C-alpha cells in the first residue's frame, strides 16, 4: 500500500478546525493521526470492481424514472426533456439534445428589466414572418408583397432598408416601397406558394435556432434569460452577457467552446440534475467516473456500440456485446490477437475475472500454534490416534468382509449384464433386420451390405 495522505479538501477542513480551536502541535498531530486511521478504513479496497458498481448504481435508479418526456424547468416556463429519455441522451452522447436550452447570465451593469429585455430581443431569432403583418401574392406576375410591421421592426432595432439583404434566396428581386417588401421571382416556373413560405421562414435578426426567450428573476433576485434553442458561442459574444456563467444543456457545444474538461463537468452536472430531479439519489462519484470514462480520450464518447462499448481493444468483449459478425470478421482480416485482459474475455475462457479476489492467489503459511493450545491439541491428538487405531483394526476386519461381499455381488451383476446385453443384441438385430427389409422396399440404395456390416462390427469391438 502506498503512503496514504488526506485529500486536499479534507486536509484543509481539518486544518481550519485546528486553527479555530487553537489546538497545540501535539494535540493537532494526535487528532490528525486519529482521523487518518478512520479515513484509511473508508478507502476503496484494492481491485474493487468500481466499474460494475457504477453501472449498477446508475442503471438501478433508471428503472424507477418516468418516461414522461416534457417538464417545465423551474420557473422559466420552458419545456425540457427530463427523466429516462434525458439520461439516455446524456449517456449516449447525442450530438444535439431533444430540447436544447440555455441559461444566460447578465453582467451587473445590465441588471435592469429594460436592458435585459433588449438583450433578450437581440438573442431571440427573428424570422421574417415575425415582422410581417399581411402578404399579397400576384400569381400571374410572380410577385409577392409583404406588409411589414414598423413598430416591431423598430422595437427589434432592425432597419427596414436592410431587410432585402438578410433574405438569402436565389433567383429573386427584392425592393422596399414605403413599408412593403416586394419580391419578384426571376424564373418563370417558380412555385410561388413555396417561395412565400421560404421567404417568411428566412432569418432576419437574432441568433439562429433560439426560438424562445424568457426573462425571469432567479432565486438570487438576479435577472437571467432562459432560452429554447442553444448557441453558446454566439450568445457569449453578445455585449452584456456574462460568458463565465452562461451555460447550455448541449454538451457538445460546451465541448466545442470550452473543451473536454468543461464537457466532463457538463456531463456530471446534467446527469446529476436529471437523476435528482426525479427524487432519486446516486452518489456523485459514480456520475464522475462515467463522465471521466466518456471523456478521458479527449473527445466525448457515448456508452453504446459507437462509443465505449464498441471500441474496446478486445475482440471478444466487442463481439459479445453487439454486432458479433462484424467484429469477428474484422479480427480475422487484421489477424488480431486477443490477450484476454478484461472480464468478459476471462469468463468466456472459463477463468476468474482479474478483479476483486480474482486478482490474487492464496499463498500462505499456517500460523504458529500458541504453546497453550499446542499441549491441549497434542493430548487430543494422542487420544484420537489411539481411538483410531482401535477403530482401524475393526474397520479392516469388516472391510474385508464387505469387499468380499461386494466382489460377489459385482460378479452377479456382471453376469446379469452380460446376459442382458446378449438379449438386447438379439432384439436389436431383429429390429434392424425388420427395418432393413422395410427400407429396402422404399429406398433404391444398393450398397454391399455384407461389407458394411463387417466394418461396423469391427468398430464395435474396438
Amino acid at each position: 500500500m502506498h503512503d496514504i495522505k488526506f485529500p486536499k479538501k479534507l486536509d484543509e477542513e481539518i486544518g481550519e478546525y485546528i486553527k479555530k480551536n487553537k489546538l497545540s502541535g501535539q494535540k493537532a498531530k494526535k487528532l490528525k493521526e486519529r482521523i487518518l486511521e478512520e479515513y484509511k478504513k473508508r478507502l476503496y479496497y484494492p481491485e474493487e470492481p468500481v466499474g460494475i458498481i457504477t453501472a449498477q448504481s446508475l442503471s438501478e435508479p433508471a428503472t424507477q424514472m418516468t418516461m414522461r418526456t416534457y417538464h417545465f424547468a423551474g420557473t422559466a416556463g420552458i419545456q425540457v426533456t427530463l427523466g429516462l429519455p434525458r439520461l439516455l441522451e446524456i449517456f449516449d452522447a447525442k450530438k444535439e439534445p431533444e430540447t436544447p436550452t440555455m441559461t444566460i447570465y447578465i453582467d451587473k451593469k445590465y441588471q435592469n428589466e429594460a436592458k435585459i429585455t433588449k438583450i433578450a430581443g437581440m438573442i431571440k431569432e427573428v424570422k421574417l414572418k415575425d415582422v410581417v403583418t399581411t402578404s399579397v401574392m400576384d400569381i400571374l406576375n410572380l410577385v409577392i408583397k409583404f406588409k411589414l410591421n414598423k413598430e416591431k421592426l423598430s422595437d427589434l432595432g432592425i432597419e427596414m432598408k436592410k431587410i432585402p439583404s438578410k433574405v438569402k434566396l436565389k433567383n429573386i428581386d427584392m425592393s422596399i416601397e414605403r413599408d412593403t417588401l416586394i419580391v419578384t421571382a426571376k424564373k418563370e416556373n417558380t412555385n410561388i406558394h413555396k417561395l412565400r413560405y421560404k421567404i417568411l421562414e428566412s432569418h432576419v435578426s437574432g441568433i439562429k435556432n433560439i426560438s424562445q426567450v424568457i426573462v425571469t428573476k432567479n432565486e438570487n433576485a438576479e435577472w437571467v434569460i432562459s432560452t429554447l434553442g442553444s448557441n453558446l458561442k454566439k450568445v457569449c459574444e453578445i455585449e452584456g452577457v456574462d460568458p463565465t456563467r452562461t451555460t447550455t444543456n448541449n454538451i457538445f457545444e460546451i465541448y466545442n467552446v470550452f473543451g473536454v474538461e468543461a464537457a466532463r463537468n457538463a456531463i456530471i452536472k446534467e446527469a446529476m440534475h436529471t437523476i435528482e430531479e426525479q427524487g432519486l439519489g446516486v452518489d456523485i462519484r459514480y456520475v464522475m467516473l462515467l463522465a471521466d470514462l466518456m471523456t478521458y480520450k479527449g473527445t466525448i464518447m457515448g456508452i453504446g456500440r459507437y462509443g465505449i462499448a464498441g471500441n474496446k481493444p478486445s475482440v471478444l468483449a466487442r463481439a459479445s456485446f453487439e454486432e458479433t459478425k462484424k467484429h469477428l470478421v474484422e479480427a480475422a482480416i487484421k489477424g488480431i490477437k486477443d490477450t484476454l485482459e478484461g472480464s468478459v474475455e476471462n469468463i468466456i475462457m472459463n477463468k476468474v475475472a482479474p478483479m476483486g479476489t480474482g486478482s490474487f492467489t492464496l499463498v500462505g503459511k499456517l500460523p504458529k500454534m500458541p504453546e497453550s493450545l499446542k499441549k491441549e491439541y497434542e493430548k487430543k491428538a494422542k487420544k484420537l490416534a489411539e481411538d483410531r487405531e482401535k477403530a482401524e483394526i475393526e474397520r479392516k476386519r469388516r472391510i474385508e468382509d464387505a469387499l468380499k461381499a461386494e466382489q460377489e455381488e459385482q460378479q452377479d451383476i456382471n453376469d446379469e449384464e452380460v446376459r442382458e446385453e446378449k438379449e438386447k443384441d438379439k432384439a436389436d438385430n431383429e429390429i434392424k433386420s425388420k427395418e432393413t427389409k422395410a427400407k429396402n422396399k422404399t429406398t433404391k440404395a444398393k450398397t454391399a451390405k455384407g461389407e458394411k456390416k463387417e466394418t461396423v462390427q469391427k468398430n464395435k469391438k474396438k
Partner: protein
Amino acid sequence: MTGEIKALGFGILSPEEIRQMATIRIVTSDLYDADGYPVDGGVMDSRMGVIDPGMRCRTCGGNIDTCKGHFGYLELAKPVVHVLFAKTVYNLLKVTCQKCGRIMTKERASLEELAKSPPSKCPFCSTVHKKVSFVKPYSYNIDKKDFDAEKIRELFEKIPDRDLKRIEFVGGRPEWLILTLLPVSPVNSRPSITLETGERSEDDLTHKLVDIVRINQSLKENIDIGAPEFIISDLWELVQYHVSTLFDNELSGIPQARHRSGRPLRGMVQRLKGKEGRIRGNLLGKRVNFSARTVISPDPMLSVNEVGVPEDVASELTIPEHVTPLNIEKMKKLIVEGKASYLIRPDGRRIRVTDDNRGDLILMLDKGWIVERKLQDNDVVLFNRQPSLHKVSIMAHYAKIMPHKTFRMNPSVCPPYNADFDGDEMNLHALQTQEARSEASLLMDVKDNIISPKFGGPLVGLDLDQITGISLLTKSGVELSKEETSDLLAAAGIDAKIPDKKKFSGRDIVSLLLPKELNLDFKANLWSSRNEDKNNGLVEIENGQIKSGVIDKTAVGAFKGKIINSISALGDNEKLRQFIDNAGRIGVAYLMKRGLTIGISDLDLSDDIMKEIRKSVKYAENKANKLIAAYNEGTLKILPGMTRKESLEAQMLNTLANGLNDVSKIVIKNVRYSDIIAMTESGAKGSNINTTQMAACVGSETILGKRIQRGYMGRTLPHFKRGDLSAASHGFVSRGFKEGLLPYEFFWNLMNGREGLMDKSLRTRKSGYMQRRLINSLQDLKVLDDLSIRGAMGEIVQFFAGEDGIDPSKSEWGKFVWENYV
C-alpha cells in the same frame, strides 16, 4: 488440467490448414446406409466425432465425453466467395490493380479508408483501373462484366505480401477469402436427435452440408462431361448460395434457406449472435446445478442474514466434504443419521447412500473420500431474486432448515431484493468449494452489505408494520410495567438485561437495543408529515438512550434510517445486524400486543368539515370555469411560448392542483387520529395524498402529464356535450374514494392506471438496454492499490478514485464524517 489459454488469435484458414486439420475428405451426400449406420465419407462419418453414448470415435478412440470432434473437408468443384468476407473482397477488388496485382497505394492506409476513394490509376504500372461493382451478397462486376470467384482468386494470388501489410491485411492471404476447400465441422457440433418414432432428425448445419455436397457433386459431374456453360454457371451459383447460407442465413438480397417446415435454418452466424447465441447464451451465462427455487414468505424471527430452507430442498442440495482424520467421525455420524446423499471414493466412483448399504459404507469410509452431505443449518448459501439489478440482488445467507415448502426470510431484507410476499419466488445456490464459501461469507454476507454503495445509506432496514410498531412504541406516553416489558422482550426473542425499575417507557425499551456509544439528533418522519410536535418529532439520543422523539422511518427505515447508518459507522456489522433484527422484532411484537386495525369510519369527517371541503372543491372548479370563460372571450393570459389552448390547459391543471392542495390541508388538519394516520406519519406506508384521496377528493387524473383529451369526436365521453372544456369532463375527480366515484370518474381513474402500466413496461425495456450498455462500457474498470481507477489494459481513467478515494459503501451518505472522531 494442463495449461491455460493465454491469448486467442484470429485469422483466415488457408486451404492447406483446412486439409491438415481434417481427418477425412467428404465424398458423398449420403448420411446413413440401409442399416442406419453413418456412411464413410458422408457428412455424418463417425470419424468426425461421436454423438451416441456408448460409441467410440474412430479417430481418437474417445467416447462422447472425451472426443472433442474432428473436422472433415469438402473439395469444391469451383471456388466460391466466403460470404462473410464479401465486403472485404469488394474492397480489395477496388484497390488492386487489375493488371499487375499490386495494391494501388504507396502509403500505409487501412483497407476501408483506401476503398472509399480508390485511385483511378495504378501507381506502379499506370494501368487505368476499371470500375468494380458489387452485386449483393456475393457477385462482382468489372466493367459491367461478371468477374467470377475463379478470376478473383487468380487476381488476389498476384498481390505481394508487403502490399498487404501496408493495408493491415495480415490475417492471411486474400485468395483464401475465396474458398476452394470447405471445412466440414465435427459431427458433435451438429448432433442429430432421435425422435420417439425412431426417426432421426438432423441438425440445420447437416442439412445445409448435405445440400452443398450434393450440388457440388452434380457440378463436378457436369464439368467432367463438358456440360453447356449455362448449366455449369447455374450449378456454381447454387453451390455459392448454399455455402453462403451455411455461414449466414440472414443475408440481404437472397432468400433465406428454409427447413421443410418453412422455418429458416440457423447458419453459423445465427448460432453465435444474439441473446440466445453461443456467446451470450452459453459462454457468458450458464445453467447451474445445486440450486433451488421456490416461493418466499416472511419470518421476522429469522435474522436478516439467515434464510429458512424447506426440508425438501435441503435434502436435494448437497455440499461435498473431504474426509480427513479430523472429521471422519463427524462424517460417519452424518451417514448414520441419513444426512449424507452420496459418497465419492478416491477412484472417483459415486455411491448413493441407501438404507441397505449404509452400514457397509460407514466401515469403508476413509480419508480421501468425499461425503456429499445434505444442506444443514448454518451452511452458507447464496440467495437471489431476479431481476438482479445490483450486487445486493444476490447475497450470502446462513441456512436454517425448516418444515413446509417455502423459503423464509426476514422482511427487513426485502428492500435490497425488491421482494414482497405476493407470490415472489427466489433462487438459492449451495456453494460447492471452500473458497466459494469463504468468499461468500466474507464478502457477500447480508450484514456486510447493509450500507448501499449507491448512495451510502442503508438498504436493509425496517419496513411496513415493523416501522408502525416501533414508532407507536416510542411515542410519548407509552408506559409498560416491568412484567409487560419482559413479556414484550420475550415475545420478540430478545435477551437483554432489564434495569430494575417499575415503569418503562417505550423509548427505554428500544434504548436497550442501542449501543452505548450512540449520540444522535435528527427530525423524525412525523415532524414533517403531520404536526411539528417537539416531544415526538425531534429525536435525541444520548449515549444510547433515547431522550425524546419517535423512532420511525427516518431512524430505522430502509433507505433512510439514520440510526442504522450511525451504528454502521461504529464499525461492527455484527452489532448492526442484531440491532436490525431486534428492532424489527420488537416492532412486530408490540404491534401484536397493541393491535393494528383500520376501518372505513377512520376517515369520517364532521359535516362542517365536509361542507368546507366541498366548498373548497367548488371554489377550484369555479376558478377553472372562469379560466374557460376567459379563454372563450379571448382574454386569457397567454403563457410565454405556448398557444392559447396550451395556456388554458396549463392554467387549468395548476388551478385544480392548488384546489386539491387546499383540500388536503383541511383533511390532514381535521382527520381523526387512527391507525391509518399511525402508518402514514411513521412513514410505514401511505402518504397525506393517499389520505386525502380516500377521505375527500381524488383530484386531476392525467395522461402524458396533460388533462385527459382522448375519446370521441369533440368530447371525452358521451356523458358530456361536444366542446366541453370543464374540469369534470377532462379528468377531474371531485370525490374521494370513500364517498365513491361517478361513472365517468371511474374512467378517468382507470385511464391513469393504464397509462402507469404501459409506462412501466416501456421503461423496464429501455432501462434494461441502458444497463447492458453501461455494464459493457464500465465492466473492466477497477481500483488499483494506488487508488487510481484503470481499465483492462491499464489505462488510467481517474487518477484518484472519486477524487477522495472514499468508497461510498463505507461512508455516511457519501461523506466521511471526520467530526465524529474529534
